[in-house]
């Protein structure tokens, strides 16, 4: 996995709450058997005026000029500023894949849905929870200042504005450790293979019905 230590980038504001993963990447694009190539279809139904199809050349499609990511000032954004309960709904990891493929590295919101939040960390994407009033302030500053950028430091757990104002955020130690070092967490878990085998042996005695049922 790609490591994440620090990042500075242009901020794009997504000013609506309860953005669901169907909205982030609609179902027709879930038919792919790959992990890449979802970027052009990120927020497809908001971004384009027509119905998107898999494997289509999106450069010829009619775009929705009102949608935030279609505005020139946000086209190179890599920090997404969002509202409460971002990423709710379906567990599709295609949502973080699409955000990543578009070029986002950081998502800031007052709250995230659990499964989406977890999926981000598996893909080198950092979701940051900041208090509602701080997010409100960042929305204001982003909209008022073209080219507004934020700096994120995962080691220090801070988000810093262009004026030097800094906000701390919380993140679980194990998630932070994996992301800072770009660790393959399957490899980390397999270091405990003996413990897993011991657990299984005990369970075969206490709950034999859990093994080879129906096979």
């Amino acid at each position: 996995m790609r490591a994440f230590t620090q990042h500075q980038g242009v901020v794009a504001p997504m000013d609506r709450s309860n953005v669901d993963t169907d909205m982030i990447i609609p179902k027709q694009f879930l038919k792919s058997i790959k992990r890449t190539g979802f970027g052009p279809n990120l927020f497809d139904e908001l971004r384009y005026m027509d119905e998107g199809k898999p494997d289509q050349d999106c450069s010829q499609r009619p775009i929705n000029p009102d949608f935030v990511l279609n505005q020139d000032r946000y086209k190179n954004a890599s920090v997404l500023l969002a509202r409460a309960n971002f990423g709710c709904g379906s567990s599709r990891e295609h949502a973080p894949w699409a955000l990543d493929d578009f070029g986002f590295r950081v998502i800031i919101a007052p709250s995230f849905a659990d499964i989406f939040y977890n999926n981000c960390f598996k893909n080198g994407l950092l979701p940051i929870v900041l208090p509602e009033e701080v997010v409100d302030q960042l929305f204001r500053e982003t909209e008022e200042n073209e080219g507004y950028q934020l700096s994120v430091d995962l080691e220090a757990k801070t988000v810093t504005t262009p004026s030097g104002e800094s906000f701390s955020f919380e993140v679980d130690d194990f998630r932070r450790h994996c992301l800072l070092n770009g660790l393959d967490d399957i490899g980390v878990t397999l270091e405990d293979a003996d413990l897993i085998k011991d657990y299984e042996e005990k369970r075969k005695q206490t709950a034999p019905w859990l093994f080879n049922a129906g096979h």
Partner: protein
Amino acid sequence: MAGKTLYDKLWDDHLVKQRDDGSALIYIDRQLLHEVTSPQAFEGLRLAGRKPWRLDANIATPDHNVPTTDRDKGIEGIVDPVSRTQVETLDKNCDEFGILEFKIKDQRQGIVHVIGPEQGATLPGMSIVCGDSHTSTHGAFGCLAHGIGTSEVEHVLATQCLVQKKMKNMLVKVNGKLAPGVTGKDVVLAIIGKIGTAGGTGYAIEFGGEAIRGLSMEARMSICNMSIEAGARVGMVAVDDTTIDYVKGRPFAPKGETWDKAVDYWRTLHSDDDAEFDKVVELDGSAINPQVSWGTSPEMVTGVEGSVPDPEQEADPIKREGIVRALKYMGLKPNQKITDIQLDRVFIGSCTNSRIEDLREAAAVVKGRKVSPSLKQAMVVPGSGLVKAQAEQEGLDKIFIEAGLEWRDPGCSMCLAMNADKLGQGEHCASTSNRNFEGRQGFGGRTHLVSPAMAAAAAVTGHFVDVRELMN
């Protein structure tokens, strides 16, 4: 020391290792696989040269992409080549790695969350995962069950474990008795309406109280299924006689002495009387009316006697903006009566409501009536090949067809419209599925979430109506 909640017990029983950093390795007893969220996981295994840790813990079936007509054609019946490739890829992966799969023409094929319980592959006390957020369904059996992303599907295939952090405990207690005509679906929609679509975020929810205890397993599954729509990955119901009776005799269930031993353990799967919850929410079950969603989030729901809200009455500006946006998308007016919403299609199916009891409830309403001529389509999609066979044995298919509903083959179908079953732009659908998000059932489609009985009532009237007015 306070007693343990059901979730505490399930967590402790699956704890392989508690790490110093607050994370834990949790053992997974059962993984369900389908074609949409598994191909990248299998590819990951292949690239790393890894093998599945334990083959017998996995069961696979294609469900999201499968057509609901011409099942006898098998994979050849999938017209969309991209969908076909995904189903073929699941077949290839399962064959290559040696994983049990109910393929498209197998009568045991169906929606993953229907076939697990149907086969007894979902057993009380198990930890169950699937690359699908509605895995919470299996919590109805007193399981620790939740959806995961594809990276975690690969992690479970390779290690039989997940890295987790323990969630908080929430009890949702539904007191009293439900009125006739009010179902598990209405209960869960009312709960989501009360606590909101993020109300359960960070919690494992246990559903309890007299109303829940009085429900069948299939109704409990509908409730746990939609825990995720309240933000909770995990929803559970304690084990009781209803649970054990449902499991008994199913193909994967234990038999003989092992059965007795299992039942002894299963009977411990309830929260202790002195268990402490981080949050308790109570509802009066007897006050719940049949529910209908009006907006684009499952929390945007009201009783069938109610009206569409007026955004002017909402004080919170973000919520107000949300209501305005939802009404615009849904093509509804403030204060419009729910019963005045005219429908274009009716969909009865999905992992929430496609089991035999759901079909019986719907059939009882449409029996002797006709689908309203104002509708373009009303369809019934059973949750599995075995549900379909059971319904046909009971003659439910004839009741539906006689009334003018289409009787289809099993799959996820119009719940998320990955196959050919979808809404047209601007069409209103009474749907027994779980999500009313923008575009969920088709580009520009407008979803109203309801119970199977309410969907059936809508099918024969062309608009929403309190199903109890049609019941004898």
